[in-house]
């Protein structure tokens, strides 16, 4: 059985857990505990370990989805999760500009290891005051070749679209 891995990352409360829950075929394995730091101000339960979801591609192939922990003190997990990943989705809460710097730090972290295929998903586009994908591109200073996609992590079609766009980027780098 071959397994391939995609990583879903982003700042605290960007919607990583929801994103994986929406698409995973199995009950998502989330290691969640009561938050003990300032993330408590954002949500009562926040991800302190990781989320794990799974999509069976066939009898011989499985896609694993890993959600990274949001808080800085779990940075070491990012490094472990990034090993061997096929691609990366960076989720951004489009309604909270206070998380844009942290988002840049996360992108910088993953890109510092190697040129991983990635897309940015502008989550919570259904909310009032959401910054549009193009505004997010400018705010995050993302180059034109990086896809910034509208996203609603609770909507299956929206999540599928983000993954398909990422797979399109991966396809361009794959071999015959």
């Amino acid at each position: 059985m071959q397994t391939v891995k995609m990583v879903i990352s982003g700042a605290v409360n960007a919607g990583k857990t929801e994103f994986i829950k929406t698409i995973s075929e199995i009950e998502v394995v989330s290691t969640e505990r009561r938050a003990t730091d300032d993330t408590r101000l954002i949500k009562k339960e926040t991800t302190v370990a990781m989320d794990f979801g799974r999509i069976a591609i066939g009898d011989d192939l499985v896609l694993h989805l890993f959600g990274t922990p949001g808080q800085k003190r779990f940075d070491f997990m990012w490094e472990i999760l990034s090993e061997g990943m096929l691609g990366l989705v960076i989720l951004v809460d489009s309604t909270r500009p206070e998380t844009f710097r942290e988002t840049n730090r996360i992108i910088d972290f993953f890109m510092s290891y190697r040129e991983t295929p990635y897309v940015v998903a502008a989550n919570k586009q259904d909310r009032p005051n959401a910054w549009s994908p193009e505004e997010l591109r400018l705010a995050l200073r993302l180059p034109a070749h990086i896809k910034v996609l509208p996203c609603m992590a609770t909507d299956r079609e929206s999540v599928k679209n983000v993954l398909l766009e990422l797979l399109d980027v991966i396809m361009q780098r794959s071999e015959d």
Partner: protein
Amino acid sequence: MPLVGNIRDFGLSDFLYLVDRGYKTGCLHLSRADEMASLYFEKGKLLTATRKDDNVPVTDLLVRKGKLTPAQAEQAVHAHQNQNGASMSQVLIDLHLIGRDELQRVLQQHIEESVYALFGWSEGEFRFEQGQRPEPTAPIMPIPLPVEHLIMEGVRRIDEWGRIKDRIPSTDMVVKFIEQPIERAKGINLATDEWRVFARINGKDTLAEIARKTGMSEFDVCRIVYGFLTAGLVDVIRKPAPVPMLATGRPLAEAPRIKKSLVTRIINRIRGM
């Protein structure tokens, strides 16, 4: 939908970059405690800026600065009533009460000072209202102002590492020009030290190396490069490491070489979900 936030999290220079690159038209409202300011943009360029404590028509401003007499101001106000949608600035020029260049110089100086003072705000709410335009009687510059040099001047007033480190986390990073820096640089006036750094940018040297070669402090070099970065002239990238290593000391595995047929299978599976 308005864009809202706090300049503590998304700085004024970042917002000016967004307005510039996004060719935005609208008004950026800033507020903190009992202070308020409004910056109006057209297609990414600054038209005018007003502050709550100094929100006067252009005629009053010019009288105060000795560029118009009260009688001339009254004449302009009367003429403006018969105009349909024209700005008061245009009426003043059409009536030859002040030359276009002189009006530009006076208003630009006034507006620049208003904006520079805003860079000193460490926090404050912002709200950008798309499409909102200034009152026709506001001190609108005849030639809208490119924001790049406002950004550079604003960044010159930054005196703390915190904000700089958000964009330049390490002095081991390499500075390189973006594809067309010369075009963008036209609107920017550089100070001597800024030229010294600008001339050292070659896409190979790190910030620490530029500091050593120019004899400047790392802070000053980073502050100047932060300005170039915010104005969209340069990019900073990590120096490529020859062999990526994990914190554990193990070399990081190569990115998996994946076959197109496998990607196609995953695509088909997700499409069918």
